[in-house]
C-alpha cells in the first residue's frame, strides 16, 4: 500500500473495490493486525492497531477470503470458541449463538461437523461467527469469492441485512462491481496500492453521466477522440483505452449521441450505449478494467 488514507464513519458500510492484487486484503490485514505495516498509522474505534493490537482486535471481527473454520468441529463449537476468545459473557453467549444461527439459517446444521457443510453454508457460518462477538467493526474480505451465483446472491442478501445493525461498521473488500454498488455507502477504488477514487457509488457513477457510448474504432482512437471533442460530442471525461472510446453522455439522450457519432467520418467496428458502471469509473482513472 502506498500513502492511502481514509476514514470510515460508525455504522457505515465501506467498500474497498479493486482487482486482485490491488492491495485490498493487505489493507484489511493491517487493520486486523495480521499484516505488519511498515509505516503510517491506523486506528480502529480509536485504538492504534500497531501500538495496541489487542484493543483493536477486541472491537473487530473478520471474515477472511479463504475458508477459516475448523472443519472437524461442529458449527456451534466453532462459534463457541470464537465467543470465548472474544470474551463474550458465557451466560449470554449461548443465546447470542442461537440468535445468529437462526438469523443465518444454520440452526439445523449447528450440531454437524463443518466438513459436511456446503461452501455457502460455511461462508454463512463464518459471517455468523464474526457476529457472535457483536463487533463494532466487521471486516468482510471478498466474502463471496468462489461461490456459485445462486449462493452468492443469497449471501449478498445476508450481508445487506447487516446494514440493519446500525451499530456495526462494515469494511467490505470486493472486486465485484455489483456488490460494491449494492452494499456500500461509500467505495474506495484501489489500484496498485493507492486509492484512486472515494465516494458514494451513486456519486461516482453520476460523474460518468446517465449513459455512455462505447465505440470500437478502426484506427487511431486518440485521433477519433479529438474529433468527437472538436464536434462537442465528447467532453473531458471521455477517454480512450486501446481501440475503445468511452464517451459519457451528459446533455442528450444515448440514442441521439449514437446517431450523432454515427454521422461522423469515424470508422467504427461497433458502437453501443449503456448506463455506466463502477468499472467505467475505474477504467477512466486507471486505464484498466476491474471486471474480467
Amino acid at each position, binding site marked *: 500500500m502506498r500513502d492511502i488514507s481514509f476514514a470510515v464513519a460508525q455504522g457505515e458500510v465501506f467498500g474497498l473495490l479493486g482487482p486482485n492484487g490491488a492491495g485490498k486484503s493487505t489493507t484489511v490485514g493491517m487493520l486486523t493486525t495480521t499484516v505488519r505495516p511498515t509505516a503510517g498509522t491506523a486506528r480502529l474505534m480509536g485504538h492504534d492497531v500497531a501500538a495496541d493490537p489487542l484493543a483493536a482486535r477486541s472491537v473487530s471481527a473478520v471474515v*477472511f477470503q479463504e475458508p477459516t473454520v475448523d472443519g472437524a*468441529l461442529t458449527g456451534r463449537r466453532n462459534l463457541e470458541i470464537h465467543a470465548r476468545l472474544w470474551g463474550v459473557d458465557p451466560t449470554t453467549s449461548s443465546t447470542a449463538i442461537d440468535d445468529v444461527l437462526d438469523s443465518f439459517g444454520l440452526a439445523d446444521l449447528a450440531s454437524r461437523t463443518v466438513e459436511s457443510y456446503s461452501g455457502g453454508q460455511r461462508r454463512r457460518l463464518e459471517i455468523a461467527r464474526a457476529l457472535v462477538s457483536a463487533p463494532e467493526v466487521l471486516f468482510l474480505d471478498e466474502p463471496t469469492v468462489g461461490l456459485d451465483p445462486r449462493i452468492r446472491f443469497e449471501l449478498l442478501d445476508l450481508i445487506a441485512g447487516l446494514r440493519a445493525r446500525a451499530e456495526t461498521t462494515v469494511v467490505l473488500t470486493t472486486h465485484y462491481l455489483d456488490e460494491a454498488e449494492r452494499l456500500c455507502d*461509500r467505495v474506495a477504488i484501489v489500484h496498485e496500492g493507492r486509492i484512486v*477514487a472515494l465516494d458514494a457509488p451513486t456519486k461516482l457513477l453520476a460523474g460518468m453521466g446517465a449513459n455512455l457510448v462505447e465505440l470500437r474504432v478502426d484506427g487511431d482512437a486518440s485521433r477519433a477522440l479529438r474529433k468527437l471533442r472538436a464536434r462537442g460530442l465528447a467532453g473531458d471525461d471521455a477517454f480512450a483505452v486501446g481501440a475503445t472510446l468511452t464517451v459519457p453522455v451528459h446533455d442528450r439522450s444515448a440514442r441521439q449521441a449514437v446517431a450523432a457519432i454515427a454521422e461522423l467520418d469515424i470508422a467504427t467496428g461497433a458502437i453501443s450505449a449503456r448506463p455506466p458502471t463502477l468499472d467505467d469509473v475505474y477504467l477512466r482513472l486507471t486505464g484498466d478494467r476491474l471486471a474480467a
Partner: protein
Amino acid sequence: MTAITTAPPTPSPLVLRRPAARSIVAPLATLTRRRFALSAHTPREIVVPLMTPILFSVVIAPALAKVTGAIHGIDYMSFVAIGTVGLLVPLNCMFAGIGVIVDRQSGARRDLLAAPVPRSLIVFGNLAVALSISAFQVVALFVAAVLRGAQFDARPTGVVFFAAAAVLLAVAMYGGAEILANRISKQEEYIGAVPAIAIVPWFFAGSLFPISALPTFLGAFAKVLPLTHALAVMRYGLLDGRATGLHDIWGMTNATAMAALSLLVVAAYAALLLSLSVRVFSRAAVK
C-alpha cells in the same frame, strides 16, 4: 492518475473504550479444549506414535533382554522400557506439529490470530495438549511394559525426577515441532523431517545401551542431546538408583547433583525451544 476523494460522513464523537483486562486462563483453556477436540477427531495422531514404542517395549526389548541379560545390573527390558519413552515423547510431539500445519492450511488459525488474546496462547494451548497426550501415552507404555515383566522402583522422589524430565523433554520437543511446523510449508515435507528429529537422536542418547558404549566422539555428541540427559534422569528416578547413566554424562558421584544438572540442561533446551517457537509462530502469523 486522478484521485477523487470526498470527506467521510461526519463521524460521531468517538469514546475510546478500553477493553476490560482479561485473564489469560479462560482463553488458554478455550484454545486447549479446541486442540483436544481436533486431536480427538484424528486419533491417528495419538495412536501412530504409540505403536513403535509399544512394539519395542513389549516385543523387541524382551527378546533382546534374553540375549543381553542386564546392563549395570538393571534388567534390560526395564532399561529399554524407559529408553522407549525417549522415542515416544519426541514422536508424539512431532506428530502434534502436524496439527499446526493443518490449522494453517485448512483450519481456523487466521480467526484465532484475529482474536483479542496474546498469540502465544495458541502455542501454549497446543503444548498443553501435546503434554497431556504424551502423559497418556507414557502411562500406556508403562502399563504394557509392566504387564510384559518390566520392573520399576517408583518412590515419590524418583517419580518426581522422572515426571520432571519427561515434561521438560516434551516441552523441548514440542517447541522444536512448532518451530519446524511454522517454517515448513507442506505436511509431506514436515513428515519427512520427523525421523531426523524424533528418531535419529534416540539411537545416540543411551536409549538402548549406555552412552559409555559409544565411541568417544559419539559419546561427546550424545552428551549435548537433551534426550540423553532426560533419559538418564528418568532412569535415575524409576530404575537406576546408582545413577550410572548420569555418571556416564557427568562423571561425578553425587547422584542428586548430577540429576539436577541434567534436569537443568533439559530445562534450558525446553526454555530455549519454547521461547523460539513462540517467536517463530508470532513472526509466521504476521506477514
